[in-house]
């Protein structure tokens, strides 16, 4: 029975990893652009949810949507004001620009929100349900299911819609895409909006279950990088599987081996996978 509990917990955790990583895979995998500020987007999503709850009240749907909207806008603005310009620069400038952005967002949050840990006040998602002796926190269940649905929606958007095709076209060859009547700037701004928006919604969902402070982005950012590399660059489905697998491995190794070994196990498997399959689970070689 306790084994089932461990597995359920691992999968729920993994689903959230998958959601905030899918936004990163969109930018990293498709545009060849490493966004070191992705964890900070998740952090800002958490604070956006808190501000909505404190200022306006409202339930999970309200603050989830608000966090998604706010971060979508922020993502697009960051593309248009910063990323677009550094794309013309050398690779190192690109890397350092989002690294600087990450620090700017993190320390702006320290200044604005202070370093204290905060949690969302009790809401419709507080509490826990028991099914046959298995305890499932409502917040994590909703977050997990929403994460899977949203990740799949993102996958459908990319593979089944005109917008998705345009995104892929721009990623493939901006020049050719422009000749086909696609405006790369608009499409890339949209991709940044989607990426940050999914991080925002993941942040809002995480906020229902975890206490946080402005430095939380560091932790989640690192996990996102591992999930994306594990799943395969540019594959949204890959990051879904990778998120679930990593969540499961963490939970299982923490329970049966001990909490201090879980990251060793995860990163050992990660390195082994990259050795055997450098493109990741679902990535194209």
């Amino acid at each position: 029975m306790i084994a089932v509990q461990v597995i359920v917990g691992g999968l729920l955790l993994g689903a959230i990893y998958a959601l905030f990583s899918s936004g990163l895979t969109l930018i990293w995998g498709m545009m060849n652009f490493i966004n070191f500020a992705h964890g900070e987007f998740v952090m800002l999503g958490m604070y956006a949810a808190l501000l909505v709850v404190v200022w306006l009240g409202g339930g999970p749907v309200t603050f989830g949507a608000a966090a998604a909207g706010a971060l979508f806008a922020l993502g697009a603005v960051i593309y248009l004001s910063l990323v677009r310009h550094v794309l013309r620069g050398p690779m190192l400038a690109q890397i350092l620009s989002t690294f600087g952005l990450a620090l700017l967002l993190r320390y702006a949050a320290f200044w604005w929100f202070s370093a204290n840990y905060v949690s969302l006040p009790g809401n419709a998602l507080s509490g826990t349900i028991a099914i046959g002796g298995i305890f499932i926190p409502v917040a994590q269940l909703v977050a997990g299911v929403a994460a899977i649905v949203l990740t799949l929606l993102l996958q459908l958007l990319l593979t089944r819609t005109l917008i998705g095709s345009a995104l892929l076209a721009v990623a493939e060859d901006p020049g050719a895409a422009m000749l086909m009547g696609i405006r790369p700037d608009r499409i890339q701004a949209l991709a940044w909006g989607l990426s940050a928006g999914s991080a925002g919604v993941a942040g809002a969902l995480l906020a229902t279950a975890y206490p946080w402070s402005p430095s939380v982005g560091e932790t989640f950012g690192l996990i996102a990088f591992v999930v994306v590399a594990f799943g395969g660059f540019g594959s949204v489905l890959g990051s879904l599987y990778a998120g679930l697998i990593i969540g499961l491995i963490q939970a299982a190794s923490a329970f049966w081996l001990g909490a201090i070994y879980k990251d060793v196990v995860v990163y050992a498997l990660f390195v082994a996978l990259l050795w055997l399959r450098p493109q990741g689970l679902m990535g194209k070689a």
Partner: protein
Amino acid sequence: MTRSSLWLAGAVAATVLGFAAPASAANPVRIGILWPLTGNAAAAGQASKAAVEVALDIINNPHPELANLPLAATGGLPNLGGAKIEITFVDHQGDPSTAQQLATRLVTQDKVHALMGAYQSSCSFTATAVAERHGVPFMVGESAALNITGRGFKWVFRGTPIASDYARTYMRFFAEMKGQGKKIESIAVVNENTDYGTSVSDAIEAEAKKSGVPVAIRIPYSASSTDVSAQVLQLKQRQPDVVIFISYTADAILYMKTMRNLDYRPPMVIGDDTGFSDPSFVPAVSDVAQGAMNRSAWDIGKPGSTTAKINEMYKAKTGRDLDDTSARNMQSFFALAEAIDRAGSTDPEKIRDALTKTDLKAEQLMMGYQGVKFDNTGQNVLAATYLIQLQGKQYQLVWPEATANAKLQWPMTGWTP
């Protein structure tokens, strides 16, 4: 020598002295303080910074209403001609190597007369080594790991009680509870795995062994974990009677919430200060962790008491009550300032000498220690602690019974009404 030349000499001397006295008063005493002002433990660092700023106000400006504290009644340090203390705060972000670099910078560039810090035991460990090498007195404010003192260092002093003091307190408490018929057949120790958590749980394990209390399971983990379900399930499987957490802030909150989520409620939870004393802990978990215990040497006390007045000053500054961690730092700062004043000099050797002769009585303190007196390793041998319990939206002092202001509730009720 003629009478007039005597007059002249007198006048010259008076002029020199007359100008010299204010000139020396204008020479401030510089103290460098290392804390995590950003990063995971930033909340604790910022709270301690605010507390020491209150202490600075008490020392630098006359506060006759707090006259039982040394240096409160006067402005500045009387034995140094009323010199004020100036503090340089630096942020090591919880990183031991940064702490080491910053300590070096404070000594070599800022030329501070004394150092203090550094919250995380791992950071105190590296920063004190710098002080020792350069011969600058270092006051360890509240880090609990055993190995910070006891390395044969001459320049390191520690005002706070340490891991073994706390471990003995817990065992005395358990013995008394067993005497009252409570069942404590086994305990669990859950510790974050840096110097702080490891040394405190080592000390607890050692004392538990001496007192014949079996440790059912010890769970080390990393404080930056985003998920602690596996650890809670391990506890649930073993069913210990008391779980002791040696945790920082986010992890402490996460444990309490996860225990509720997985429906695990041991008869008693004891937090070893730190995360459980962080200003964000109680608001975050008061609905799920009723009856959780914690240690504290700080008690606000009755209205009008010195401690209550200090708390009011702190509250006016931060909007919060003073917590144990910040209060222990504040007390250590007072002890350091008192020694500097007694030294009557900013010469490091004289300050060190004064620190070794420190002998503060309980009534001269703001904390529940029996006094401040350093042994030859630099450890305060008169440090002690109370046990407190989360009841409603605040901690109440519940043990030892003689000083308690509320009745101990056993078992804890957690989230149940």
